[in-house]
């Protein structure tokens, strides 16, 4: 049995919001993937726009590398506004 390709589905709920990942579908080609995504993920007005992306086109970071990928920012607290002292008299900044 040939495996039908897998596609990741992204839905924009309304204009002004980003497309958000909602799940995946199997389909032979992009047209059928869009059709299947519509049937499976938008039966109740969940969206105004759909993206389907071949799953094997997504490059993901490895959770095992989480420490070296993301921890260095943990010590860089000077990237946050609360690191800096502004006298109260100055007011909201």
């Amino acid at each position, binding site marked *: 049995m040939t495996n*039908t390709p897998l596609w990741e589905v992204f839905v924009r709920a309304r204009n002004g919001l980003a497309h958000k990942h909602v799940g995946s*579908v199997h389909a032979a*080609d992009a047209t059928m993937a869009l059709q299947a995504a519509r049937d*499976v993920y938008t039966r*109740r007005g969940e969206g105004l726009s759909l993206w389907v992306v071949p799953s094997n086109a997504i490059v*993901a970071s490895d*959770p095992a590398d989480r420490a070296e990928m993301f921890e260095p920012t943990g010590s860089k607290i000077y990237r946050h506004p609360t690191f800096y002292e502004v006298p109260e008299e100055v007011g909201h900044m």
Partner: protein
Amino acid sequence: MYSQALNTKDAAVADTSPEAARFQARIDAEERIEPNDWMPEAYRRTLIRQISQHAHSEVVGMLPEGNWITRAPSLRRKAALLAKVQDEGGHGLYLYAAAETLGVAREEMVDQLLSGRAKYSSIFNYPTLSWADIGTIGWLVDGAAIMNQIPLCRCSFGPYARAMIRVCREESFHQRQGYEIVLTLARGTPAQKAMAQDALNRWWWPCLMMFGPPDTDSQHSDTSMRWKIKRFTNDALRQKFVDATVPQGHFLGLTFPDPDLRFDAASGHWQFGAIDWAEFRRVLAGDGPCNRERLAARQKAHDDGAWVREAALAHAAKQQRKAA
């Protein structure tokens, strides 16, 4: 529609590695586990089995209700039933997709169902003999499903929990449309009321069995609870369902087929009679009223659709060659 505590015995080997300890600490801290995270093999196996069997239940669950689409008593009922059956198909697909993130192929899961190696909820092996059964399935079967599925929205495995949130949002429509059908019959002619009562008589006990074996027999619960795949025991969910459902049945003016059913003021719970677990085991083992029919229908749909799947792939390959 529903995942059943199917309790296939799985020798859970105690994993004493540091990874396993870290994994358990994350679970205890209510962190969600995502597909590429490290996880014990038994956790992966348990989830693949539970999610795929849940998916199979949704897909097989389309059959008893599909039986009445062409005979629905009005266009309104027909449109609602079509939408409900379509939802069940959708729920199956959300769940297959969630299971696939654990590294099992869709084709493999379908093959497990068709070859009888994977199970699905015992409830779908009962026949839908009258229109009242459609109402009763919505009210009771979907009602039981909701009880079971709401805690699954907080399951430790992210993709399963997210799929369950979508499912639960849609399930409420199913239960309400079912109750409305039963209410209409219960307020109808004596023959219609008798039809509603007959359906309740036949579905009540199989619905209580949907929650799986009693906690005393449940080999699986401990590990599943520790991993936060399961949040409540079978018996706790069953009691919750009975407490919620009995007053709804009394409002309909129907009686439950259980002479031992009574309200216990001290505990605040409805107490019910003994469940026939021999029947449950028989149906699960393949010997229910409709097991063979259900699998034959799935096999036929799969075989009849084969040329469509092949044609779609051939068309896609041809278009790709043309574009190249």
